[in-house]
């Protein structure tokens, strides 16, 4: 039984619990997901609305908070571009999902599968015989002038037999309630990972409804696509990877996330090389074949040799590898041409030729202004038309400054522009999007929406994700959909009448259990781990240094001057001005650590990442308000604790394999360097009074010193404890022992018993420290040792990291 809007708020519920339902009205002439034209609540939504109405304000706030907390804890972000800079923004979740009935969804899915087949067939034609042009169905200029039609790819058939493997469509509901395609995404569609994050967050907010109603799960889609990518390898031992443009990309978070979720390597162009026509991954164990690449990089950047010569993020020889069948690319290079807006004007005509049937779902009405009849149509009815570049891609209202309303132009101007530059323009029908309820301050109100739906080609053909990603406008204007302009993203629930099977990413085991070898470690990832280790250790050292300084400043004031004079040059050698409470130099080192960690985000647990981000945020906040002296000393102690938290998370949880070894080598190397430098400066005969105590404090060994030696500090005791004692985790000897142990485990450490250059240098350093005594390890000897240790870093880099 459907109730109308008038009595929906009845039943004794307090007015505050109505949540805006009573006043909810569809916009005139615009279909709405929640209610039909006469205001009747659609039954599909009843459980969700009831749940919403049951919650009081506090409960609702807590429910929505759970979703936000999840996104914060996972560090979900996207990158927003504005006035010459870009910033990471938290993911703008519209908490209220969009609900669609599975029957409607099945019809929509069938139409989208037809469209995916059509695009595949068109792609094969455009990069093959070009019959559509020859038969006059497509104007040649749309192809030959298209920057995404990549000539080097013409006549290069895809190794897998298909050009397209993963596509997305932007859909809107038109005034008659039917679905329209607004844009095709074939280049490197983003959003599938965000859809899954939306799902997790939203199901936390409305867990009761989600569990109670039969909502189709997303995991099966990802599992099947992952299995498909793995099956496309020509060589079972080869790698599958996701190719990212890098951490500055708008959706890098998602790329790293997908790599982690699917268990693929996340690689950049510089991680790859081509050898005899095969794509290879540069790893710390040498070049390893990479057989399938899921590309999130726009095609032009992929190969500076044969595509855009200005690209700095490509791989020379990539096109050559494709030509020689040495890699499968998802999607093929050149698939971006299918996104061309003007093609939408021709797809209705092309469909019968390419897939033998008319389009099952229309796309947004489009007129290519390169021909006279279309120009006349636009001039006849400019009020309905939006003008944009013919070769542009994406949603017309996503591209600021690219679109204009034809009606805004004086008629003569419009006629002239169409006549002189018509071939470069398309007119598209100005869309009115349908609405869906958005939750605003605890009340629902209709807002425009569009859907992004994902299709993956699997062993059984195209599979449509049973869900997706809805974009909800910030205002009633369709232009407000863009997230760059305050729009939000919502989860999409496909509601079934029956139980839906629970699906897990984990495949059912077959045969006896076998432990798999860990994947190859890309050299660039190893390099970032090594530097992350170094930077984090450097931050810790500098924090200890600054804390000791501020404590002495607070306790002794001017009397501490000679000691500070010995200390400050050490801080300055790290680019830190010790006079500041929380110096900028420290913030910069922390930023360098975050930047290294950001490059390898796929290798971090969300906990590790948020610990590091929290550390950074705390330091920046402190920097503005902490005064030198006691205040700074306390703030620095707090930072030290947070730092220990991060190190603990990494050390306790990281798998003890190659990545961890490089992190550890970096860390111990930095600590060995720092300690050698400290001792050379503060354990010198000429060092001021109190320097030895300071040294022991900086080495975090005050208690140990007291316990090991029943006397005060002397040069001999300090050198013994901080340089030579293998049991002290702060000593130089301990670092070198640790590095030696790791280096011996690296690939190629010894060849038939012969040590590598690195192994030899490492052993020399270790033996030198092992045979010193406090008397022989003079300041001069320390300085020599320090430069030997410094060379180890170059040897690690030379052998593994480039």
């Amino acid at each position, binding site marked *: 039984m459907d109730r109308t809007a008038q009595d929906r708020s009845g039943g004794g519920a307090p007015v505050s619990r109505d949540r805006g339902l009573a006043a909810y009205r569809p916009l005139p002439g615009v279909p709405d997901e929640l209610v039909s034209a006469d205001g009747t609540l659609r039954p599909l939504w009843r459980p969700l609305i009831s749940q919403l109405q049951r919650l009081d304000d506090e409960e609702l706030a807590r429910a929505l908070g759970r979703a936000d907390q999840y996104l914060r804890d996972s560090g979900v972000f996207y990158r927003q571009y504005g006035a010459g800079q870009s910033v990471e923004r938290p993911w703008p979740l519209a908490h209220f999902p969009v609900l669609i009935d599975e029957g409607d969804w099945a019809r929509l899915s069938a139409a989208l599968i037809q469209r995916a087949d059509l695009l595949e067939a068109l792609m094969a034609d455009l990069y093959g015989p070009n019959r559509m*042009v020859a038969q006059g169905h497509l104007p*040649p200029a749309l*192809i*030959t*002038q298209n920057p995404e039609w990549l*000539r*080097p790819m013409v006549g290069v058939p895809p190794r897998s037999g298909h050009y397209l493997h993963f596509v997305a469509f932007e859909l809107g509901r038109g005034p008659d309630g039917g679905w329209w395609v607004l844009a095709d995404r074939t280049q490197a569609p983003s959003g599938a990972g965000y859809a899954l994050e939306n799902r997790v967050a939203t199901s936390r907010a409305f867990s009761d409804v989600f569990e109670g109603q039969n909502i189709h799960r997303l995991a099966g889609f990802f599992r099947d696509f992952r299995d498909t990518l793995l099956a496309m390898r020509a060589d079972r031992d080869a790698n599958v990877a996701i190719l990212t443009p890098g951490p500055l990309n708008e959706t890098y978070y998602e790329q790293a996330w997908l790599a982690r979720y699917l268990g693929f390597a996340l690689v950049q162009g510089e991680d790859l090389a081509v050898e005899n026509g095969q794509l290879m991954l540069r790893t710390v164990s040498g070049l390893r074949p990479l057989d399938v690449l899921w590309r999130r990089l726009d095609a032009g950047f992929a190969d500076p040799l044969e595509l855009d010569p200005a690209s700095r993020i490509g791989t020379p020889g990539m096109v050559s590898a494709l030509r*020689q069948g040495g890699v499968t690319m998802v999607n093929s290079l050149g698939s971006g041409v299918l996104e061309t807006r003007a093609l939408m004007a021709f797809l209705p005509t092309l469909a019968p030729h390419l897939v033998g049937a008319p389009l099952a779902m229309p796309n947004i009405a489009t007129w290519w202004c390169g021909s006279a009849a279309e120009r006349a149509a636009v001039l006849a009815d400019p009020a309905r038309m939006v003008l944009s570049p013919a070769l542009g891609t994406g949603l017309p209202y996503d591209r600021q400054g690219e679109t204009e309303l034809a009606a805004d132009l004086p008629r003569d101007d419009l006629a002239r522009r169409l006549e002189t530059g018509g071939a470069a323009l398309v007119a598209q029908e100005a869309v009115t999007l349908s609405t869906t309820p958005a939750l605003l301050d605890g009340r629902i109100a209709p807002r425009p929406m569009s859907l992004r739906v994902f299709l993956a080609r699997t062993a059984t053909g195209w599979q449509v994700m049973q869900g997706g990603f809805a974009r909800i406008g910030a205002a009633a204007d369709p232009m407000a959909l863009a997230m760059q302009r305050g729009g939000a993203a919502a989860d999409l629930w496909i509601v079934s009448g029956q139980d839906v099977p629970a699906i897990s990413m984990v495949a059912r085991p077959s045969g006896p259990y076998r432990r798999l070898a860990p994947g190859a470690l890309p050299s660039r990832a190893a390099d970032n781990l090594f530097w992350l280790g170094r930077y984090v250790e450097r931050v810790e050292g500098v924090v200890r240094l600054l804390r000791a300084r501020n404590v002495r400043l607070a306790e002794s004031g001017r009397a501490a001057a000679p000691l500070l004079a010995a200390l400050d040059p050490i801080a300055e050698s790290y680019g830190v001005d010790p006079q500041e409470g929380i110096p900028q130099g420290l913030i910069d080192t922390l930023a360098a650590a975050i930047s290294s960690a950001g490059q390898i985000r796929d290798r971090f647990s969300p906990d590790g990442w948020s610990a590091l981000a929290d550390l950074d945020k705390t330091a920046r906040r402190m920097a503005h308000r902490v005064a030198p002296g006691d205040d700074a000393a306390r703030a620095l102690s707090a930072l030290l604790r947070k730092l220990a938290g991060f190190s603990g998370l990494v050390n306790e949880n990281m798998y003890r394999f190659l990545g961890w070894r490089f992190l550890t080598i970096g860390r111990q190397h930095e600590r060995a360097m720092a300690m050698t430098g400290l001792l050379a400066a503060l354990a010198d005969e000429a060092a001021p009074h109190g320097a030895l105590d300071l040294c022991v404090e900086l080495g975090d060994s005050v208690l140990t010193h007291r316990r090991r030696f029943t006397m005060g500090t002397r040069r001999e005791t300090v050198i013994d404890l901080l340089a030579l004692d293998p049991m002290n985790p702060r000593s130089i000897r301990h670092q070198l022992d640790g590095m030696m142990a790791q280096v011996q485990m690296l690939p190629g450490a010894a060849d038939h018993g012969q040590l590598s250059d690195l192994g030899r240098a490492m052993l020399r350093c270790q033996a030198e420290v092992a045979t010193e005594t406090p008397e022989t390890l003079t300041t001069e000897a320390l300085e020599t040792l320090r430069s030997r240790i410094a060379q180890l870093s170059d040897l690690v880099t030379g052998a593994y990291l480039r």
Partner: protein
Amino acid sequence: MTLYALRLAIHYEFDRPTGAGRQLFRILPADVPGLQRLHLVRVMLSPAPAERVEFTDFFGTRVIEVAMPPGLTTFDLVLEARVEREVPDPELDMSPPPAALVAEIAACRDVAHASPHHFLAPSRRIPAMPAVARFAASAVRGAPTVQQAIVRLGQALHRTMTFDAKATLVDTPPDQAFAQRRGVCQDFAQIMVGGLRSLGIPAAYVAGYLRTLPPAGQPRLVGADAMHAWVRAWAGEKAGWVDFDPTNACLVRGDHIDVGFGRDYDDVAPVTGMLRLDGSQTGSHSVDIEALDGP
């Protein structure tokens, strides 16, 4: 018919050993039915490359792809070839009046490599250049046919521009070369291509060689000490492609040897790809072409 002996030598020196690198060479003379035949060809690389394959690119140019091992301090390539080149009869002008060209282009439903559609729009190295467009419009005013327009623009450009090997570099934009009215064959050709496209005449950039030793009693042609470039313009369905050399103000006959054509220099650059990313390299190349028989 003339039989040429062609020898190209490319030599690089590096101040520090190089990293591994991948290069494309577009240097092989083309086989053009009825016009040019490649008889013998040898390409020698020193030191030996780690990989060497050959393919034909979109515009039909043969490309040698080479991957060099790391640690190079010098690199040498020597090409030796025998090329037979026909001297086409001075053909009749079969091209339509300029105003009729647009319809002939529209009637061409083809996007294969020699389709005029590839050569109408601005390209990466030859953007729309208003000053060149004005110059071109005034140079061809009153030309009765497309071919006449092509020849008039080429001749006007030759009168206006001075050949100067020191005025431009390989990356100098053509509108800058035009502004200073100086440049080499690459500049002449790219400016003329831009001018023709502004008139709606499809125009390609052609790379090749020019005979360096003139027949007895004739002057040595300009630009003959290196690789050469000229222009190929589409003069309608009947006339087809017409080659004009603006550096020498002549229609291309028997003194030129084709390597390939494309939208601009990038599509037919003789060497693409870097041997190294830092440090400096010095390079030189030389071309010798001798007519073995004929005039």
